[in-house]
C-alpha cells in the first residue's frame, strides 16, 4: 500500500472537489475483492483496462511513475478517460514539471510528484502552447478543427 500521506505533500490538483482521502488499493487486491473501495493505485505495468468494469464507482485512480522515462502511465490515463472515467486521475512518483502539460493532455488532473514542482515554471509551461495538433483526453480543440471548423 502506498504511503499516501507522504506522497500528497506536494499534491497539485486541477479539480474543484474535495480530496478523496480513501487509501488507494493495489490493482490486484482491488480486483480480488473490490468491496466498496473507490480508490486504486495502478503500477506502471498494470493493465488499466482491468478497471473499466468499475469506472462508475471509482473516485481516485493513482498511476505510478517509477521513473520519469517510463511512459506507460500516459496510455493508462488515456484508456481510463476514453472509457468515460471522470474521477480523480493522479500521476504519482517521478513526475517532472515539464511532464505536467502532456500528462494533463492525457487526462491526469492531479499530481503527487516526489520532488516539489516550481509553481512559476509550471505556470509558464502550462500557458506555453496556444495550439495543439492532436485531439487528446483534455478537450482541447486540435489545430485541424480550428482550420476546418
Amino acid at each position, binding site marked *: 500500500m502506498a504511503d499516501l500521506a507522504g506522497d500528497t505533500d506536494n499534491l497539485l490538483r486541477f479539480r474543484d472537489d474535495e480530496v478523496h482521502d480513501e487509501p488507494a488499493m493495489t490493482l490486484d487486491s482491488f480486483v480480488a475483492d473490490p468491496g466498496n473501495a473507490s480508490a486504486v493505485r495502478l503500477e506502471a505495468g498494470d493493465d488499466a483496462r482491468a478497471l473499466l468494469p468499475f469506472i462508475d464507482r471509482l473516485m481516485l485512480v493513482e498511476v505510478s511513475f517509477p521513473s520519469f522515462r517510463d511512459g506507460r502511465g500516459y496510455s493508462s490515463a488515456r484508456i481510463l478517460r476514453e472509457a468515460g472515467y471522470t474521477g480523480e486521475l493522479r500521476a504519482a512518483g517521478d513526475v517532472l514539471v515539464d511532464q505536467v502539460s502532456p500528462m494533463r493532455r492525457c487526462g491526469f488532473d492531479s499530481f503527487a510528484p516526489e520532488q516539489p514542482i516550481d509553481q512559476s*515554471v509550471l505556470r509558464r509551461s502550462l500557458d506555453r502552447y496556444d495550439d495543439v495538433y492532436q*485531439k487528446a483526453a483534455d478537450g482541447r480543440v486540435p489545430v485541424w478543427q480550428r482550420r476546418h471548423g
Partner: protein
Amino acid sequence: MYKYDEYDQSIVDARVEEFRDQVQRRLAGQLTEDQFKPLRLMNGLYLQLHAYMLRVAVPYGTLNGRQMRLLAHIARTYDRGYGHFTTRQNIQYNWIKLADAPDILAELAKAEMHAIQTSGNCIRNISSDQFAGAAADEVTDPRPWAELLRQWSTFHPEFTYLPRKFKIAVIAADEDRAAMRLHDIGLQITRRDGILGARVFVGGGMGRTPMIAPEIRDFVPADQLLSYLEAALRVYNRYGRRDNIYKARIKILVHEIGADRYRDEVELEFAQVLTLGIDPPAAELARISAMFAPPAFDAVPSVPHELAAHDPDFAIWRTQNVSAHKQPGYAIVTVSLKPIGGIPGDASADQINVMADLAERYSHDELRVTHAQNIVLPHVREADLYAVWQALADAGLAEANLDLISDIIACPGLDYCSLANARSIPLAQKIATRFAPRQQDLGELKLKISGCINACGHHHAGHIGILGVDRKGTENYQLLLGGSGAEDVSLGKITGPGFDEDGIVDAIERVADRYVAERSEGERFLDTYRRIGMQPFKEAIYG
C-alpha cells in the same frame, strides 16, 4: 511545398521559448543533467565526444532555397563552417555550444524549421521518398501524408516517453527509395477501389537485432490512418520492453509476441480509438496536398541524351546522377555529397549555398535530402542539366557516383560519436579512393559502414556492409554481403572473421574481383550474390 499557417508557426515559436527556458534552468542548476537530458534530446541536442551536436529536422527531406541557405548560415555562424546530412534526411552540426542552441532554434523558426523530436524516445522525423512528386512510378505524392503525420506526432502527449525511439517512413511507389521496411513503421500509400490508403508494416529496423517489418495490415483508408497509428503506438507504449534498452524497439515486441498477436492487439485498440474522432477531416489532407501540387512545368521538349556527348565528364555524370522525371523534358538530379576521399554527407556552408542557388534557379526552389546522404534537385529541365553540372563541378559537387561503390553511407564513427567502437570516415575514404577508378565497371553497389553495432550506417542493408567492432582494444571490421534497403529488402550476412582497416579494403577488392569474374550480362553485384550465394565470395576472401 508545405507552408506554415499561423498555428504551425505559433507551435514552433512556443517550442523555441520552451527550450530557451529549459536551457536557462539547466545553466542555472535547476535541472540536473539527468533531468535535462530527455528534454534536450527531444530537441535534437546530443552531448558527443567533443561538444554538443544539434540535429535539425528536415521533414521528409524536403526544403527550399531559403531554408537551405539558413542551414549554411548556421554552419558558418555557430559551427565550423560545415554540416552533415544524415540518414534520416536531417542535418546535424557537430560543434554547437549549449548556450547558442536557443538562438539557433529561433533562427530556424523564422524559416519554418525546427529540431523537434530529432532525438529522444519519441516519434522522430518522418522520412520519405526523395523523388516524391517527381517520380513516374508513384501512386500519389507521399509527402502530404508525411506532413499529416508530422503534425500528429509533434508533441503527441501519449507518445513522448516511449520505450525507445520510433521511426516512420512513408512511400507511395513500388520502388522503395526510403528503406521503408527497415523502419519501426513503414507505410506504403496505395489505391484500393478508388480510395487512397496505406499498407502498414510494423517492426522493422537495423541496430543490434536487424528485422524486416512484416505487413500488419494490407490497407487502412486515409481517413482512419491516424487512428490506426495511434492504436499501433499505444500497444507498443504499453507492452514494449523497458527493462533493457537493447530490446526496447518495437521490432522486439513484434518478434517476441509474433506479428499475428501484435496485429490482434492493434485491432482491438483500433476499434476503440476509431470511436474517438481523432482523425482530421478529409479537408485537412486536401489542404496539405494542395501545397504539394506539382510546380508549373514548362512544356519543353525532351533533350536527347546523346547531346551530352560533347563533354565526356558531363556525359558520365548525366548517366550516373540524373534520373527520369515524370514530366517530359525534366530530370531529377542527385548531387553527390560523396567526393572521393571526402567525408560522406558533409557539405560546407559555401557548397550548401551553391545548392540553394541552383534550386532557386533551376529546380522550382526545391531540394531534398536523401537517406543515402545526398541532395536532390527534383525538377530540373533537361536543357539546364549542363549548366547545373558546371556549377556543381565548380563547387566540388559533381562526383558522378550515385549508387556506385564510393556513394557510401557512413555513420560519424569514432571520430565524433561516444558510442562508436571504430572509425567509419577514414575507412570510407580509403574504400572510395581504392575503388573509384573501377566503380563505373562495378556498377550499382551500395556500401554502408557502421562504427558500432547500433548500425547508424545501415550496414545490414548494404550490398556490402561493414561493421566496426572493438576486438581486445583494437578496431576490427566485419564484412557483410547481400543486404538491401530497397523493395527487394534483405539483411546482409557476415562473411567470417573480421579484418583490420587495410585488411577489410583488400577483402572488398577480392569480393569485387570475384563478382566481375562471376557476373552475367547486366547483373548487379547483389543479383550475382543472390544467384551464386556466399560460398564463392568466402573462398575469394579467405582463400
